[in-house]
């Protein structure tokens, strides 16, 4: 089972709420489907993102894929650890391979997203 401290999106992103900041990343399943990653495009601090809309792109040897935001809000931090080296995203996307942190309006920012159990079912169906 993937971590239960966060919510997931059908399009294979995860979101974890700490106070009024949501950390966003893509799941290990997404990385496995993409294969070897070669390029990542992310917004800058200060940019706004909106739920269900692409905020970046991750590119592998095989394909390029949108990364969708699970929430509405303003980017407060971009993972500097992915600046030159995509290793953390490739190997530990649920941990230090996170992508951006977004300040959200309220504690119900993740309402309507799916939980870990539902995400497991989704992955099982797509595997």
């Amino acid at each position, binding site marked *: 089972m993937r971590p239960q401290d966060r919510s997931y999106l059908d399009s294979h992103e995860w979101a974890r709420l700490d106070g009024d900041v949501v950390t966003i990343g893509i799941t290990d399943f997404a990385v496995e489907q993409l*294969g*070897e990653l*070669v*390029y990542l*495009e992310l917004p800058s601090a200060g940019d706004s993102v909106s739920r269900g809309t692409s905020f970046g*792109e991750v*590119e*592998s*040897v*095989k394909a*390029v894929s949108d990364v969708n935001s699970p929430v509405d809000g303003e980017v407060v931090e971009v993972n500097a650890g992915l600046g030159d080296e995509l290793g953390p995203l490739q190997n530990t996307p649920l941990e230090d391979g996170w992508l951006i942190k977004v300040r959200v309006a309220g504690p119900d920012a993740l309402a309507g997203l799916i939980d870990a159990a539902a995400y497991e079912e989704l992955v099982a169906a797509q595997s």
Partner: protein
Amino acid sequence: MSENAPETLLRTPLHGRHAALGAKLVPFAGWEMPLQYDSILGESRAVRAGAGVFDVSHMARFWFRGPQVAAELDAALGGCVTDQPLGKARYTMLLQEDGGILDDLITYRTGEEAYFIVVNASNRARDWQTLVSRLAQTDCQDITEDGGGILALQGPQSWEILRQLTGQADLAPGFLDLAWPDSPFGPLFIARTGYTGEHGYEIFVDSVQAGPVWDRLLELGVAPVGLGARDVLRLEAALPLYGHEIHEGITPFDAGLRFAVRGWKTRDFIGAEALRALGEPSRELVGLTAEKRVPREGYPVLADDEQVGEVCSGVYSATLDGPIATAYLRKGCAGPFTASARGKEFPVTRVDLPFVPHRSRD
């Protein structure tokens, strides 16, 4: 890479071995084929550094036999095969009346009145219908599904590996040579051909022996390589792929493949008249590199904010450790160029093809 829900995917004689190796299997032209065993880039590097083996048993195989076969094939194909020596392979193509490319293929002359032809799996049905309709007096046979295995052994060490596999040195010594050795695995048909730009062989073997040959190659240290790396390697070597660099809207001249229609000025074949009527091509096939992003198939290429072409194929090159692509650009266009990824432009640099020099004749 995907197909429109075929009822059942065909399996090559090596399917069980791919599954046992943990390969990622994907539908490809009606077959279930290994995309990668481990890493696309790692598999690509293994071929350039030593030797790799690809299961290409999905490729379509036809036999053509009869007293009229050479003359009829000469009229049916872009290339000349009447003067093709016995025991040699040749690269040529199947053209439409208007000179557009239906497919590229390899002809193997195995006898005075016998040619073996290998075409792209994705074009099997259409190529078969086209050839049968153009070869009225020739005996035609499609042996794709009972034709056994094709193992492509590629890389600088493939000469030595083939010696150890067969117990014989110097089989098919020259590029495009054919050989029919006896081996510990029974009779093999070997062609000095490939799709990587490296020294290599394609080994045709019956269904029963395909597995044992594969196992022996892996024992000898050859890396299993999937279709993902095959695409990287062929693009590094700038070898064209149907549906990308070549298709019905492209002539052999556009693609820089004049050698595949040798004698087009004087010979009579389907498409020749149209080729003779063509002026100089208005576009050219070029290589592009980029800093980080891969210029992908279909991305527009711009110069001075004006679209001057489009990307045919793009991958991340394992050998160059960076993005590479092919594109058709309007002739005489000077850079600098950008590629547009869904509205976002990024710089690309025009370079000479191939990206990685060919060593297939070494």
